[in-house]
């Protein structure tokens, strides 16, 4: 099993570990609900070193990514991050990734841990098929990645850097920490403001010490506390963000995810653009009236929680399936995401979730469930 470069830090904070995509990662340090609240109200530090970090560089790097990604790459600026999907030929979702543009021929692609090997093979296959002059360099093992998320994070970072708090959302900057390069982006997966930081493995101990110098993490009122993958999941669910293996998968076409902002079916129309893998299949789905099911949010006035795989019904009729669900720590009631027949996606539509024991009354609700103030 792969160990995070932050393992010592986790052990010092009494982490409970879990295996995730071949990595030993902290699921929580104490209570998931408390870590969740800490992030919503102040700040949390997440180790996301298991995420894949792949550098794509070379003369054809941009064109190469244009073919891989469902979203336009050609209009990105230096220092910009962009959320996009990577599809298979059938338009199914291979992964959702963040592309960071260093310059026209150098990019970092952050991919899901569970898809890294698969994507590396896919990248290589597309590169070879198109004879692109591009280098694919998996930098996951030599780097670490942490996310600092929460309303008090930028204030804390302002003590170290004047520049970082001025970054706009989905922008990044490269800072030098002594002789080491640190990539800081204003991105995240919690619905809160904050940053994600990619740094060399060898810099982890020093960077944590420096960063957390004035944060007394073990004090009850610490501005920043460690938060695990458990809280990360409930936070992203409240923020209406999809997760591979739940809302996204190879069998789920990109259009039914509702991530329309991340899919440009006309990418090939610009002279700098190119058709992406899966584009033709998605156009066909669109032209035939669109996907049969769409992703919706569900809210419940219940104590019981819908879980992945539970059937969604209208009356006796099976009309959908739950992909994620949790008792929302912020809202105090259960929330879920589900794929349902497209004529039942209107906000307020009353549906039932079959737990196998009982049917829970649920309503289609707008996402995100939670939006920061």
């Amino acid at each position, binding site marked *: 099993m792969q160990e995070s470069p932050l393992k010592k830090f986790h052990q010092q904070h009494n982490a409970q570990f879990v295996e995730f995509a071949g990595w030993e990662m902290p*699921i929580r340090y104490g209570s*998931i*609900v408390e870590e969740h609240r800490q992030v919503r109200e102040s700040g949390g530090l997440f180790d996301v070193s298991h995420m894949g970090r792949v550098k794509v560089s070379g003369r054809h790097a941009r064109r190469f990514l244009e073919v891989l990604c469902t979203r336009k790459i050609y209009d990105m600026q230096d220092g910009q991050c962009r959320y996009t999907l990577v599809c298979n030929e059938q338009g199914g979702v291979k992964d959702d990734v963040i592309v960071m543009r260093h310059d026209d021929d150098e990019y970092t692609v952050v991919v899901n841990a569970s898809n890294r090997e698969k994507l590396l093979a896919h990248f290589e296959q597309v590169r070879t098929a198109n004879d692109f002059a591009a280098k694919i360099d998996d930098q996951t093992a030599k780097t670490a990645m942490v996310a600092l998320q929460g309303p008090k994070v930028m204030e804390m970072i302002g003590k170290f850097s004047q520049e970082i708090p001025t970054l706009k959302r989905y922008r990044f900057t490269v800072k030098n920490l002594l002789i080491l390069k640190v990539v800081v982006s204003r991105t995240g997966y919690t619905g809160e403001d904050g940053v994600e930081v990619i740094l060399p493995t060898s810099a982890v101990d020093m960077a944590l010490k420096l960063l957390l110098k004035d944060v007394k993490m073990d004090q009850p009122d610490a501005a920043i506390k460690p938060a695990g993958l458990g809280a990360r999941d409930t936070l992203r669910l409240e923020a209406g963000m999809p997760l591979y293996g739940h809302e996204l998968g190879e069998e789920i076409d990109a259009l039914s995810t509702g991530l329309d902002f991340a899919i440009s079916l006309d990418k090939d129309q610009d002279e700098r653009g190119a058709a992406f893998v899966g584009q033709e299949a998605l156009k066909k789905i669109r032209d035939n009236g669109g996907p049969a099911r769409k992703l919706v949010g569900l809210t419940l006035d219940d104590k019981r*929680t819908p879980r992945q795989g539970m059937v969604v019904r209208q009356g006796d009729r099976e009309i959908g399936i739950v992909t994620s669900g949790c*008792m929302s720590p912020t809202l105090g009631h259960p929330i879920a995401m589900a794929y349902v027949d497209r004529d039942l996606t209107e906000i307020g539509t009353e549906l039932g979730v079959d737990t196998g024991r009982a049917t829970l009354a649920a309503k289609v609700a707008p996402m995100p469930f939670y939006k920061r103030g």
Partner: protein
Amino acid sequence: MSYPNDRVYSQSHEWHKVEGDELLLGLSKFAVDQLTDVTYVEVKPVGTAFKAGESIGEVESVKTTSDVYCAAAGEIVEVNSKVVDDPSLLNSDPHGEGWLAKIKITDKAGLDKCVDAETYGRDHAN
């Protein structure tokens, strides 16, 4: 903390504290820690009869939903309404205030498969 030795523990992490022909049933601290923050507790109604190893209710946490089993056969005679009203009791005091149900034992044979606190604690440090 060690496990109380006045009760026996099942493979599925319930504790059974036998008192005469009744037993008190709850979840081990190990199980509760695995579940994390408990958000919902449901026990079948008083009067429900069940066979050994049958589910007598369920516990939900932020992360997951899990069945609760009783190693013996019996009938539910009391449900801990306190833990139903305040599921966090299960997190804070799983071996005490967080008990789930009182059971009238009709066949205790299944309890033989349970282990004592020392054996359970060896495999499930808390």
